[in-house]
């Protein structure tokens, strides 16, 4: 009897400490759905690029004019991916916060969001600058790198696993900058495969 009460007390303490200082309403389903969207996007982008090369290069010489059409296609894919990911992320987060009874818009979620957004916005602007200057190859790895930094930066304000996900994304980003040309594949691993794996892990551990 006594024993049960104290075990219960310790559980309450841990739960209240987490709930009052961290935003823990991240759902595994967010990770899984965003991962699937990213994989599909990476696959379509890969096909577009491959098609473009077969159509526009002749003996290794690339037709420079046609690149604008490809650029437009890729930007559209990127925009749709971003919107779908945000949408799925928000829907599943709202769901989970209702289920575990944590307020969605709170001091905790605001702190988490600000810490995520600072590296993301800076990275986003940097990527746009590189696109403007015609340096396309570094864009995919840079999105991985800055997304990873954002996760590391925000990891103290949410569940702990986010930190290792961030570190892995940073590593993939650095590899991508070093080895330009496999950017899309690394992007698929980072945003696709890793999100799905972490989503499943979160479902098992924090459900």
């Amino acid at each position: 009897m006594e024993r049960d009460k104290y075990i219960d007390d310790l559980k309450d303490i841990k739960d209240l400490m987490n709930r009052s200082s961290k935003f823990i309403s991240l759902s595994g389903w967010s990770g899984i759905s965003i991962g699937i969207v990213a994989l599909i996007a990476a696959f379509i982008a890969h096909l577009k690029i491959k098609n473009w090369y077969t159509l526009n290069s002749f003996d290794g010489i690339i037709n420079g004019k046609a690149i604008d059409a490809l650029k437009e296609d890729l930007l559209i894919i990127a925009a749709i991916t971003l919107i779908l990911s945000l949408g799925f992320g928000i829907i599943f987060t709202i769901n989970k916060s209702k289920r575990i009874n944590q307020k969605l818009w709170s001091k905790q979620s605001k702190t988490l969001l600000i810490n995520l957004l600072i590296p993301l916005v800076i990275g986003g602007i940097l990527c746009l600058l590189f696109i403007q200057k015609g340096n396309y190859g570094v864009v995919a790895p840079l999105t991985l790198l800055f997304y990873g930094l954002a996760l590391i930066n925000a990891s103290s304000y949410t569940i702990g696993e986010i930190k290792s996900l961030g570190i892995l994304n940073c590593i993939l980003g650095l590899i991508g900058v070093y080895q330009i040309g496999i950017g899309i594949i690394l992007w698929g691993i980072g945003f696709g495969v890793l999100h799905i794996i972490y989503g499943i892990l979160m479902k098992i551990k924090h459900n």
Partner: protein
Amino acid sequence: MKSIIANINKAFENKVRLGTMSILMVNDSIDFNSLKELLGVTDGNLASHLKSLEKNEYITYEKTFEGRKPKTTYAATKLGKQAFKQHIAAIEKLLK
């Protein structure tokens, strides 16, 4: 065994007081309404338990104004944090 039981703090036997102290261990301060929401208790219930923690000098409060609305924020004292740590240590020993 006797010394362990001596370290179990009666002030933290109650769920509301235990919860309040848990929250104040990881937050520098918290206002009355957030505390109420996190613990899921009524105004009167929370107020009476906060008063008893104040009496023990485990927490302090500060009254400020947010526009025209008065706002009370609470924080744990050094003594309170120490007592809470001892209480947790005693529970953990007891469960071993």
